[in-house]
């Protein structure tokens, strides 16, 4: 049984059709990578799945439950979480405070208006655990806007994971990174526990083949192939679109 | 029946006044992203300028022209001197235009006092049109005519001219207009002056209908804001429809529920917002 099932969704902006009958299946724990040239509709697909954009037609199931009409915050509570292509953090807050904000989302006292958040010991404990696990304890009091770009990307993922999701959507986790940072991030993604299914939009083919169990190729808003890394690597059409053009990326 | 039609005409005339002032407000908002809280005082200023020149035995039409020109020039000065410093800064805009509205309103009070005044209907139009037993004051018909003319002009400017294309592009994508090598500063000054002139024009035309009194600037500002909200941000077409709607409903409201006319208009706004949070003709915000 698939964890996330996207069935024939379409989306257009005014006269511009961005997604045509896109379907996708993700199994529990699977690493599913979405590739495709710029403008293929990858980020729009994420926005539709998380209902930041309403879909025109089709359906989306999470654990067999139709979710296409549920609001973004509701989806988090059902176990689906995401990151954004551009860093989307709270720049004036410290690393620790960013994590606090993310962690409170699942607490029953998130509507409490009287007792200070700072005095909650469970939040502190969980924050420390995350900081230790990812070896960034020394950075805890730094304002996020003063972190390096790579650190911000990492924090972006950590915030999304704070809700303890079953499935995590990562929108270009390595975009804008130096080769060193990219390698680091690729490794981090591979370290994520298998209890979380990942759907990753990624451009860097090295990263794609390092993490993918399954790859879906999106082109002009249509799925042209969904299969194992081997199938994708050997597919003529994909070669044409992706590797045929000027870019000399190789796996 | 004849009373009903006469009321309808009054409502339409008011609606057209609201349209003229709201059009300026909404174009400034759409193109420059500025809420001009001093817009109501420009309306008031327009009426008082005509008042002064008529008192000097000047023809109404010449006085009206002077009023429109002066408010346009004031618009240019305000934009060049002050408004241009606050683009993109919402709080500063509010503070600045709020301060300006205080200054202008106080200047008006200083020069013209707090007594209630009226503008005479211009001699040429001080007559009524009789169709059967129905009587329509010519001046109201004239105001409706001017309002429609303005709508036509805006339509022409928007869809048939280069300047309209630039402004439409500006509404959709600010950066692009700059990239096209168009002098954005000049466009903004022009738009602001145009909006100010419209406020002046509607004040001048509105003088004979609603008179001049302390607090009129606030009343007109609030009504035109409601018109803009119902019509949709930056859409003059929306303002046209909603101005007529508000003018007519308000006029009938005053007849049927004298003490609740404002409430009715406000409730209409709430209903529109519940159904369409971006207004009737507003762009959808993702």
């Amino acid at each position: 049984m698939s964890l996330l099932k996207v069935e024939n969704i379409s989306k257009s902006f005014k006269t511009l059709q961005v997604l045509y009958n896109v379907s996708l299946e993700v199994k529990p724990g699977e690493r599913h990578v979405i590739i495709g040239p710029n403008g293929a509709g990858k980020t729009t697909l994420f926005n539709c799945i998380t209902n930041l954009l309403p879909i025109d037609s089709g359906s989306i199931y999470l654990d067999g439950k139709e979710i296409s009409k549920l609001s973004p915050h509701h989806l988090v509570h059902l176990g689906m979480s995401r990151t954004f292509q551009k860093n989307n953090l709270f720049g004036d807050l410290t690393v620790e405070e960013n994590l606090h904000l993310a962690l409170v989302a699942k607490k029953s006292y998130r509507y409490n208006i009287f007792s200070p958040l700072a005095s909650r010991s469970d939040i502190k404990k969980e924050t420390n655990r995350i900081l230790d696990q990812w070896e960034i304890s020394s950075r805890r009091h730094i304002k996020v806007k003063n972190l390096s770009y790579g650190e911000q990307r990492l924090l972006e993922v950590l915030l999304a994971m704070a809700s303890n999701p079953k499935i995590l959507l990562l929108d270009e986790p390595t975009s804008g990174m130096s080769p060193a940072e990219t390698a680091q991030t690729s490794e981090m993604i591979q370290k994520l526990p298998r209890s979380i299914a990942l759907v990753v939009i990624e451009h860097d083919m090295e990263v794609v083949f390092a993490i993918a169990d399954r790859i879906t190729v999106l082109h002009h808003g249509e799925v042209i192939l969904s299969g194992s890394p081997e199938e994708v690597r050997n597919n003529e059409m994909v070669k044409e679109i992706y590797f045929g053009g000027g870019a000399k990326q190789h796996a | 029946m004849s009373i009903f039609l006469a009321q309808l005409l009054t409502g339409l005339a008011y609606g057209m006044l609201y349209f003229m002032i709201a059009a300026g407000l909404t174009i400034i908002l759409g193109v420059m992203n500025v809420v001009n809280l001093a817009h109501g005082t420009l309306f008031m200023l327009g009426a008082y300028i005509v008042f002064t020149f008529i008192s000097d035995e000047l023809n109404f039409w010449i006085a009206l022209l002077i009023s429109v020109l002066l408010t346009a020039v004031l618009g240019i000065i305000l934009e060049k001197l002050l408004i241009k410093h606050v683009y993109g800064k919402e709080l500063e805009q509010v503070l600045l235009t709020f301060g300006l509205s205080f200054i202008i309103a106080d200047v008006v009070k200083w020069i013209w006092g707090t007594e209630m005044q009226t503008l005479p209907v211009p001699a040429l139009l001080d007559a009524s049109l009789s169709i059967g037993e129905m009587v329509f004051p010519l001046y109201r018909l004239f105001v409706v005519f001017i309002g429609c003319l303005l709508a036509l002009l805006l339509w022409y400017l928007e869809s048939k001219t280069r300047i309209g294309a630039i402004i439409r592009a500006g509404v959709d994508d600010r950066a692009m207009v700059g990239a096209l090598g168009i002098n954005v500063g000049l466009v903004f000054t022009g738009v602001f002056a145009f909006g100010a002139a419209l406020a002046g024009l509607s004040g001048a035309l509105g003088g004979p209908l609603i008179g001049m009194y302390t607090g009129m600037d606030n009343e007109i500002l609030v009504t035109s804001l409601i018109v803009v909200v119902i019509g949709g941000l930056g859409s003059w077409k929306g303002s046209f429809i909603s101005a007529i709607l508000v003018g007519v409903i308000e006029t009938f409201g005053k007849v049927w529920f004298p003490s609740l006319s404002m409430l009715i208009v406000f409730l209409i706004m709430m209903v529109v917002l519940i159904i369409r949070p971006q207004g009737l003709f507003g762009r959808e915000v993702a």
Partner: protein
Amino acid sequence: MKKIFIYTVLLILLVLAMPLVLSDFGINLATEIYIMSIFAMSLGLIMGYAGMVSLGHAGFFGIGAYTVAVIGQYVSNSYLLLLISVVISGLTALITGVVFIRTSKFYFLMITLAFGQLLYVLFWQLKPWTGGADGMSVSAILNLGFGEILSPNAFYYVMGVAFIIAYILLRLFVESPAGKITKGIMENEARMSALGYNVRVYKLLAYTLSGALAGFAGSLYSYFNVFVSPDLSSWTFSGQVMVMVIIGGVGTLFGPAIGASVFICLQNFISTYTERWPMIMGAILVILVLIGKGGIIHWLRYFKDIIFLRKQTDEGAPQNQVKKEEVVN
């Protein structure tokens, strides 16, 4: 937290000590400042902690004031009357807020302005109950269980205590989970939604609390001024409170209170010399905008930093040392 506690104690001492040095006129002025500070802090809450710029907040102030004036003719218990004021203004905020907060920022500004003006017109037009444009005098007398409050000094202490309580409640809210989340939503709404927060609930919560507190300030004003008029809900009054918030400092709790003090003192001072206060106020606003950002509280902090040569709290340039060893692989 400790710093906040010390500040609060200092504030209480200041409020208690002021009558020792003030004249009767000063005491009256200070009393008015406390009331206006509560009002300004209520607006400062949604402006600085929820990113909602309202130009209709005087509407809630007017509701509170007229509740005491009108219902006070039939209800004499001050606690009950204050409670009714707070509940009515809070409920009004809740109901209108459901519609208002769905809109974008410019819309919110314009709609709240229209809302305040609506109440202004209603108070004006419902003459049989409100006295219309002439306003009405307030017959209810403040009595909190230890005698009727009539003397300037008694009013001073009551309003001073009310101010401190309002400040502490707001401080608690700002530090609470809901307060922190609301602030997060102001910074980045889409992200908070993606983290699993129902952003509308928090915005509505802040708006409701703010409206209720503004109503509370209005009801205190009603007792203090013994006269209410539609002007209490006019949008120019809303605008003036916004000015207090902005000149005091948006994004801080106490800034709006400082702004209210400065504004009211200036108003009183200048009005004794000239009738042209509106023009002067307008000019001050224009100048404030032109000379730059921030409110008084930001300037105070800036001077404090210079005087005490404080080290900047942020560490300088970004450092990239996390897991360097992994890069080598």
